[in-house]
């Protein structure tokens, strides 16, 4: 064979090779748009799910993938190697799934990531205690709730963040509240169901905070003695979640609030529906997938819910012997904004500037006019009073407190009589400077454009006797 022929043959060979490589495409185990869902044996009572420590850790649950386009396809179990697994969330690029799993019956719950292309599973947390309720941050990190044993006595779920490999784990919430079912809104903040546990139990509300644990504030609170019980999902400017009537084990309905003004836009989408809702996932502009059952004796199945007509439409996936809950769709999603972080771990304190402690929606009864004027604010930690702070004529006060330590406030008049409080718990992160407009004021009020007197009249460092820490001026 002469050289020319050799060259020709080798060229043909290379061509075949290249074409072969081009056409060879191993079938993906999971098609896009597949439904990923937690399947819980129907003999397990889900009514107490999300309602406390025990209900979160359901046994024998599995995460499965179901093809909604081709019902003939067998469902794939994605967590076969787990004793129990739940709470899946697909990454924004639609390529990975984070979930909470229990390797065996005695093991603690941990956070895992499953690569939905290679189907490889990697463990994120290596915690001696339970870690659940994972969600993706837009920067690729994972947030989750960790069951801590706190000084305040009880066990509470505390919100943490870490890298996908489990490194750089940081605590985000510092109050004696249990924070669960977190998700990320399009503005980049985390919203969680938060329930005060100490000193006296409160009721669940939805709180928002930034991804560095700063600017923790109320996002939604029911005005009808109802409590949010599911993870929230945002779609088309609306936040959807399940709310349960009190007392416990009351009716569960599907509700929505406008993301823009959640405190004043509550709407029930299933008011007339005798059925029961468990969890949901936004399908498109007008439709949700809901975990729903027409009556309590049945297991939860997945239905399409039309948000315009406020009606549950067809069942898309149901199994009599399983509750099908926590649906997500295997697809890429709009990435929320990545929020910059201002926490300076080298600092040990943060500041709080209250513009007007007099501004409140809480009435004070049993005092005449003269005694209503706030003279001081008492600042409490978990176990003691940290100190008293004078209140300026305009109602403002300015304190520097130990970072990552829960505090709450109580206002007193010149005679030392308590006017309002104690308030809900708040905290500041190291080097955080947070402000509040009033004390239990209307949460939709923006501040008046004025310089609070306290800004120049000196900042009080608490606990009493501790030194004021120099503030790093956050100029741009």
């Amino acid at each position, binding site marked *: 064979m002469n050289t020319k022929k050799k060259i020709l043959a080798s060229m043909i060979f290379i061509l075949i090779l290249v074409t072969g490589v081009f056409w060879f495409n191993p079938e993906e185990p999971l098609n896009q748009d597949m439904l990923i869902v937690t399947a819980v044996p129907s003999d397990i009572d889900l009514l107490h799910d999300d309602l406390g420590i025990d209900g979160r850790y359901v046994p024998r649950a599995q995460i499965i993938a179901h093809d909604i386009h081709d019902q003939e396809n067998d469902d794939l179990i994605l967590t076969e190697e787990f004793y129990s697994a739940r709470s899946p969330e697909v990454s924004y690029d639609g390529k990975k799934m984070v979930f909470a799993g229990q390797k065996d019956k005695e093991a603690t719950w941990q956070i895992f990531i499953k690569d939905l292309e290679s189907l490889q599973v990697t463990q994120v947390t290596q915690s001696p205690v339970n870690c659940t309720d994972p969600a993706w941050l837009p920067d690729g990190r994972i947030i989750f709730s960790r069951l801590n044993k706190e000084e305040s006595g009880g066990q509470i779920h505390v919100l943490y963040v870490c890298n996908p490999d489990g490194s750089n784990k940081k605590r985000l919430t510092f109050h004696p509240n249990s924070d669960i079912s977190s998700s990320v809104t399009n503005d980049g903040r985390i919203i969680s169901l938060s329930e005060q546990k100490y000193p006296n139990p409160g009721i669940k509300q939805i709180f928002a905070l930034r991804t560095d644990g700063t600017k923790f504030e109320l996002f939604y609170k029911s005005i009808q003695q109802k409590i949010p019980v599911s993870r929230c999902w945002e779609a088309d400017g609306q936040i959807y979640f399940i709310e349960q009537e009190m007392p416990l084990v009351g009716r569960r309905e599907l509700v929505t609030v406008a993301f*823009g003004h959640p405190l004043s836009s509550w709407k029930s989408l299933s008011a007339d529906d005798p059925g029961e809702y468990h969890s949901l996932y936004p399908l498109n502009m007008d439709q949700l997938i809901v975990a729903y059952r027409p009556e309590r004796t049945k297991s939860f199945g997945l239905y399409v819910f039309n948000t315009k007509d406020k009606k549950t439409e067809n069942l898309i996936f149901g199994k009599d012997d399983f509750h099908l809950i926590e649906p997500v769709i295997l697809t890429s999603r709009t990435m929320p904004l990545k929020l*910059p972080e201002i926490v300076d771990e080298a600092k040990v304190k943060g500041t709080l500037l209250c513009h007007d402690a007099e501004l409140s929606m809480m009435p004070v009864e049993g005092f005449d006019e003269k005694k209503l004027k706030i003279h001081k604010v008492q600042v409490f930690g978990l176990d003691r009073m940290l100190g008293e702070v004078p209140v300026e004529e305009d109602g403002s006060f300015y304190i520097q407190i130990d970072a990552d330590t829960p505090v709450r406030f109580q206002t007193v008049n010149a005679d030392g009589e308590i006017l309002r409080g104690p308030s809900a718990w708040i905290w500041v992160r190291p080097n955080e400077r947070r*402000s509040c407009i009033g004390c239990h004021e209307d949460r939709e009020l*923006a501040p008046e*454009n*004025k310089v609070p007197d306290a*800004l120049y009249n000196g900042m009080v460092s608490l606990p009493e006797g501790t030194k004021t820490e120099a503030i790093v001026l*956050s*100029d*741009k």
Partner: protein
Amino acid sequence: MNKLGRRILFLGIPLITVGIIFYSGHQWGVRHAKYITGGTPHPSNCISCHFYLDQDAQVAQMLDRAYVSPFKMLVSPDGKSLFVTAHESNEFVIVDLESGKVKTKIPVGKWPHSISVSRDGKTAYVSNHWSQSVSVIDIDSEKVIDTIEVGNGPSDLILDENNEFLYVNNSFAGNLSIININEGKEFRRIPTGNYPMGIAISPDGGKVFVTHRRAKPEGFRKSPITELVVVDTRYKRVTERKEIHSAHIMENIDLTPSGDLALFTLIRPKNLVPSTQIERGFMITEGIGIIETHAGGKVAQLLLDEPNRYFADPYDIVVAPDGEKAYVSHAGVDYVSVLDINEIRKILAENNQDELNRIANHLGMSSKFVIKRIQTGPNPKGLTISPDGQYVYIAERFADEVSVLDTRSMKIERHIDLEGPRTITQVRQGGRLFYNAGRTFQNQYSCSTCHPDGAEDGLTYDLTGTGRNLENTITLRELSNTSPFKWNGKNVSVYMQCGMRFSRFVTRTESFTPDELNALVAFIFQKLENPPNPFQLPNYELTEVQKRGKAIFERTKTNDGREIPEKDRCITCHPPPYFTDRSSANVGSGFETDTEEIFDTPKLNNIVDTAPYLHDGRAKTLEEIWTIYGGEDFHGYVNDMMKMELNDLIEYLRSIGPAHTYKFEESSIKEASNE
């Protein structure tokens, strides 16, 4: 050496040489870029700076496109034509609404701003914002038939009901030109307030309402108070000055058909509030102002924002002919809000003035009267409504389009193409970013909110959130070649200024991507020019007073013959063309709220327009820089001067115009010296 060796040598040496040159060149380029951008981590390349950022770069000019940029609009009285001002192409555009096509484009003055049309629809009057004139256009012949001289910065304008007098806001001069239409010239000019912008006339023609962009100079650390001025059309005099508290940037105004309410857009800034956060409207809130026009009527402000969602830069407002609805364009978020005027009436009826003052800060109020939010194209500016009220036309400035909103379906029905260039240059993209709030937490404000039209809002902000190092907003016009930036001169580049730290402490959300930053900087450097300075004579000559002032500006000896050290001469730190030596100095302007006494030397181009002065805006006027804050000749030698001489100096400062006029001066001087 064999053949192969020679070949290797022949090919290898040049390759190695090129490699070495390329590598070292690249290394040098990276160091240079790091220095220029202040080490801002972003993959810059030679082109991004040297092609786009240099104002005088030929390449930048070659790459630029003549965009139309529709600004304000008006529908002809017969509803058949749409008149549009094209502020970048300096044209008056007539659109045939039946075909939805551009009929003609008529060249007018610089930055055509607003339009008013005679009742018969035959004559249009267009204010030329940067030409101090009004173009009179004959609609039938499609020609400019007259150009009437008015004051500085003509913006919104309105004809009275008999087409006898035309009222024109002179924004930069702070007054109102009243033009006698029959005589075709100015009849009178009356002072209004600080930077008049919006104008409307009552249905009975008896009153003209003027809103303002900037607040009254109330003094250091006072909440802004901006005026709404009422002019009596019979006597042509200001008869009322309503004070709108804690608000400014009142860009446009419209009245209900019955004339009982005047509605105008506004911004409620929080410049006195320590900026520790953006959440809960801690930096800027946006809304509308409403006045009941009858004697002793209420004054209300209602926010269009929501607690977690802001609608930045409300610009234009139009009331439907039936008086039921009003439409507001939000230039910063590409939305139009639809307001229910009856709900607004209810709010006015149910609340006394004190309650109205309280709810002016309530972010939940919008849910009571905003009935729809409609997404638009980039940077919706002017709005106009068809005589039958069926269509609202929205000028999408950065799309070179007008979108048509059907008020029955409340949907954008179609887009009218104003035939601008299809390509979006990097500079154009930068413009979109500059005027958009997408890179601020919850879209609370855009760059242009505090820098309207690239200038400044005249307020001092507490950006450190501690009451320290307060900062007077500085103009971004003619920023190129004036680094470093920021009052303390810390930021060596705009990349640094608008980079990561900016997003951490000012916008508090995801920062600009490197490409966005390139585009933004390109736009700022190339497009944010200063308007012509009316106090500059043609050919940049000086009046006698200005000459005397210039002599003082450049003097080397005091009146009593003492030598002024070079460092203390005005001209040393403020040399043309930018009137800054780009260094920092202590001019005795450090106050109790400052941690440093040394500040960046500001440029002086068009300083007449940039009150208040000094780094924290303490000096309300140029005079106060020396009469109150000059100290013992810290800020140049002035204590030996008589009042008359200070006036001369100030007249010279007031005449300092755009930098390019001094480049011209410099080159002509060079030419002269060469001859």
